[in-house]
């Protein structure tokens, strides 16, 4: 697809604090390197299951994390590592989850597709497409009910725009004026299916007025712009009873998951999108406009790689969950019984 506006024009430097840019760049780089480290471990056969990488979309999670106030929530898909890293989850715990270890973010229960870190505002990575959209609306319903001032940010792929649960969740959010922003991360493909074979329209925000959601839509090539525009949508949802629908045009540079060779797109297309890559552009701006030296950039990368190497080491050295762990957490009573030293209850066994 061709993005709606001129994309080669350099973003204005005014108001772009180099230190801030460096901070955001570093955050984006942390996500990218985390994903690269995970991909490497997967290729080495050290982790298994499905692994969906966020490479190319980092600016979205980083912008979001910048804007969240205490109590705000992110609900997202199985492509969830980026949010965990951006929201401040320990990268060791994230990596350990991919390894299915006891020290993992959810103790080895969920793996890559099911990250949860409530205390960091990550209310979940959901692996059934669209299933989280009404749930996110439910979080916002509770916020309105309790008057807690929190906003829920619900992320979904463009592929999730065509399933019933999404429609119902958005519809209820609009009807009840819930404090929520739905953010479509339109990375152009649902697995191997390009947008034009998913939907009869090419602008997904056309659905917003039918739910009475505010809308905005842009190409994610600049982390500052993305942060600023997301901030507006969040502000309207928080303060003006105006739930929103935002479509972010972005790209995943890797396959849908590690098992997808991505044969359905051309090298040219990937290269074109790489020029819009917010991480690449931030680095170019730091180097060009802000005169940052190669050594300084390399030093950042080295620090970030150091963190990821530590994360991998932590994951590899962590123990497996104890066998009894599998009986915990299904019901509240399971955990209470375990705490009291009772045997787990097994219905039907």
């Amino acid at each position: 697809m061709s993005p709606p506006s001129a994309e080669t024009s350099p973003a204005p430097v005014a108001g772009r604090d180099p230190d801030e840019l460096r901070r955001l760049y570093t955050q984006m780089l942390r996500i990218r390197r985390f994903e690269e480290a995970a991909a490497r471990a997967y290729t080495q056969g050290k982790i298994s299951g499905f692994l969906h990488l966020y490479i190319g979309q980092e600016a979205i999670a980083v912008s979001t994390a910048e804007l969240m106030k205490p109590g705000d929530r992110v609900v997202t898909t199985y492509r969830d590592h980026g949010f965990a890293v951006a929201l401040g989850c320990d990268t060791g715990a994230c990596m350990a989850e991919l390894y299915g270890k006891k020290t993992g973010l959810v103790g080895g229960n969920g793996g890559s597709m099911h990250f949860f870190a409530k205390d960091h505002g990550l209310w979940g990575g959901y692996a059934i497409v669209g299933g989280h959209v009404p749930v996110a609306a439910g979080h916002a319903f509770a916020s309105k009910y309790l008057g807690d001032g929190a906003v829920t940010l619900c992320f979904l792929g463009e592929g999730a725009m065509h399933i019933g649960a999404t429609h119902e969740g958005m519809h209820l959010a609009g009807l009840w004026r819930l404090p929520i922003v739905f953010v479509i991360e339109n990375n152009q493909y649902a697995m191997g299916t390009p947008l034009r074979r998913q939907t009869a329209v090419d602008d997904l925000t056309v659905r917003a007025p039918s739910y009475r959601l505010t809308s905005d839509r842009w190409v994610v090539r600049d982390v500052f712009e993305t942060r600023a525009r997301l901030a507006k949508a969040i502000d309207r949802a928080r303060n003006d009873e105006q739930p929103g629908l935002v479509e972010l045009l972005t790209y995943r540079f890797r396959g849908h998951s590690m098992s997808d060779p991505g044969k359905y797109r051309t090298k040219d297309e990937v290269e074109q999108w790489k020029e819009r890559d917010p991480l690449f552009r931030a680095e170019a701006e730091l180097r060009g406009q802000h005169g940052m030296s190669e050594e300084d950039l390399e030093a950042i990368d080295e620090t970030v790689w150091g963190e990821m190497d530590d994360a991998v080491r932590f994951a590899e050295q962590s123990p497996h969950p104890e066998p009894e762990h599998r009986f915990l957490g299904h019901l509240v009573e399971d955990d209470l019984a375990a705490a009291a030293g009772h045997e787990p209850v097994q219905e039907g066994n």
Partner: protein
Amino acid sequence: MPLLQIREALRAAIDEEMGRDDRVFVMGEEVGYYDGAYKVTEGLLKKYGEKRVVDTPIAEAGFAGVGVGAAMAGLRPIIEFMTFNFSAVAFDQILNNAAKLRHLSNGQFTLPIVFRGPNAAAHMLSSTHSQAFESFYCGFPGVKVISVATPYDAKGLLKSAIRDDNPVIFFESEVMYSVKGEVPDEEYLIPIGKADIKRPGDDVTVITWGQGVAVALAAAQLCEADGLQCEVIDLRTLRPLDDEAVLTSVRKTNRAVLVYHGWPYGGTGAEISDRIQRLAFDHLDAPVERVCYEDVNMPYAENLENLVIPSPERAAEAIKRIAYVRV
């Protein structure tokens, strides 16, 4: 005889039936241009075109319902669920439409439709992606339910399912698509509702299906060391159940163990166990045992998943227990 993978046997069945009857078409996510998430439909788009190999958006309730409507209007849809976990989203279409419309219309409509795809645990996909659905789909009238474990059965039964005039739920497995076996060149059909003895034996009847078959056969192997000969029955069709095959074997061995992927509470395993105790009570020398998932949501961690899923060792233990072999 040529050796085919299960995925190739399934593809051959679809291909032959599409060639034979132009009302047969395939619909689902990534079945066309992507050649199938698990490559079952590879090459079919090229051969039959977009009209008959239809890629859908992610909209299971939508395309399952479209399949139902098309079947009522005379087509013969094969609806692929990328995995049966996602059929949960379309459950209403199967439960309230596919299974009921013939009865509601007092026979005015027939619903020749197949819902197929991988079922049950694969490997380290955690709870939302590891579920065995036979207990749900066997739990109501108006559908037939099949679960295959070999390329030969896969082809013969899928062909029968496509030709059947009723809704058929057809279970495959992600971890079994590459399993190879002999499949004859010439056309054949396997009747729905007939179990198959995968290994004859006199001492203990082991009843299984789907991913359980390999586990049961491995367990039978383990038990041989203790001088126990297991008869392994692959049900192949779960609804209607082949009572006769099960009862004939149990009357001979006087002992039965069920080995399957799925939760223990209720469902298909419990149903079979109930039939055995009711219909062969006088022949039983031991309680009927079930070796299945533990009653937990599937964990991601490999060491835990291995404990939850039935293993040959766990199955062998149960077999020996009811054969009163000291272990």
